[in-house]
């Protein structure tokens, strides 16, 4: 089988549509994962045992089951109880929840790394709980963990082909569709790989820069 540049040219616009959706799903999924992770990390520190325990179990449950199963559940099972979600929305929720349980651990480590003296100084300044979190603890905890978070977001990016299982028209799904209709797999699949590789490599450069910029905080 020979490599057909004409075919490549023909399918390129479709694949680029897919790339856009892939990137959109990753960006939205990352934002959701960042929020979910913070919420889980804060809830697990709650003085109310019921809250911290149940959120802890929920996170373990999500982390212990495959993302693909969760995606099927959100997209195909939830409609049975009346929750009907568009594919992309279901996919973003799946990615955000799943990776949120991982980013929660990053947040936990970042928060634990803020010295106890900072909590005590906040108390001595009579700052309340909310102000202590928003002005003292999180601004110190988050910058050093940006590289670790970005790592998870890159990992998430490479898992977005799973969204093709719930009919999201992302890169992999578009490639499958053109491949199935033309019976040519080599060009679409090679291009999928190439797209992922190029974007991953760019992300790695960005990650190195983030590490350099935020990796350590001066005390």
């Amino acid at each position, binding site marked *: 089988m020979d490599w057909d540049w004409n075919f490549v040219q023909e399918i390129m616009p479709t694949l680029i549509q897919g790339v856009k959706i892939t990137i959109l799903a990753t960006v939205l999924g990352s934002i959701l994962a960042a929020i979910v992770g913070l919420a889980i990390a804060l809830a697990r520190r709650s003085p109310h045992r019921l809250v911290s325990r149940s959120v802890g179990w929920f996170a373990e449950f999500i982390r212990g089951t495959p993302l693909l199963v969760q995606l099927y559940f959100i997209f195909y099972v939830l409609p049975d109880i009346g929750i009907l979600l568009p594919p992309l929305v279901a996919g973003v929720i799946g990615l955000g929840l799943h990776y949120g349980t991982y980013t929660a651990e990053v947040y936990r480590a970042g928060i634990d790394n803020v010295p106890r003296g900072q909590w*005590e*100084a906040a108390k*001595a*300044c009579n*700052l309340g709980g909310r102000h202590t979190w928003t002005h003292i603890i999180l601004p*110190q905890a988050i910058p050093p963990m940006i590289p670790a978070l970005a790592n998870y977001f890159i990992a998430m990016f490479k898992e977005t082909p799973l969204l093709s299982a719930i009919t999201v028209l992302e890169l992999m799904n578009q490639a499958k569709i053109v491949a199935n209709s033309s019976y040519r797999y080599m060009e679409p699949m090679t291009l999928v790989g190439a797209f992922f590789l190029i974007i991953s490599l760019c992300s790695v450069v960005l990650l190195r820069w983030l590490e350099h910029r935020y990796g350590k905080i*001066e*005390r």
Partner: protein
Amino acid sequence: MQVMPGEKLALIGPSGSGKTTILRILMTLEKIDGGHIQVDGEQLYHMERNGQLMPADERHLAKMRQKIGMVFQLFNLFPHKCVIDNVTLAPMLTKGVTRVAAEKRAMELLDMVGLADKAKAMPAQLSGGQKQRVAIARALALSPKIMLFDEITSALDPELVEEVLNVMRKLAAETDMTMLLVTHEMGFAHDFADRVLFFDRGRIFEEGKPDEIFRHPKQERTQSFLKKIIAAGHRV
């Protein structure tokens, strides 16, 4: 143990003797197992409800904390905020002071501690002595009635100790705040304090005027502690 308004108190004693714990309890950084503490005529860890004393809730503790400020051994400046923001943050957040007013007051305080020119510097750019002077200004910005100083020169290089102690002398001369000072600087404690408490094994072992404690300690344990301190190079 009682402290009078405006009194300057030095708490001395071997490490682990409970002197720092007293300050931490007053700042509500530690829980108490029992007993009662009154600050400025009000219960610190208890509040009155229908004539009965109940454990204090967070609101009561926050109200009581307004009366007290603390300076720590390791400064504990907020490293992500510049010097003046360290000083203005709490007044703006907890007292609703406007930024303009908070910064005006902060500049006065920074001037007092001799760091007005460092207002925009980050804590990481300062020496230990400068950090501690900022920490003093930060605590003063909330205008507490009582200031707690927890070994504030112990983490400093020897040549930086004096600049912090000079600020303390100025502070003692200019204000009538009540001050509790945990220190190993016996010479400074002698000049600074109205009264000295010697702690050992969690109890106040001996107390009196600085001259009595430092020149004529009655208890044998106080004598041997001071001897060890002098042998370690601290002047009395």
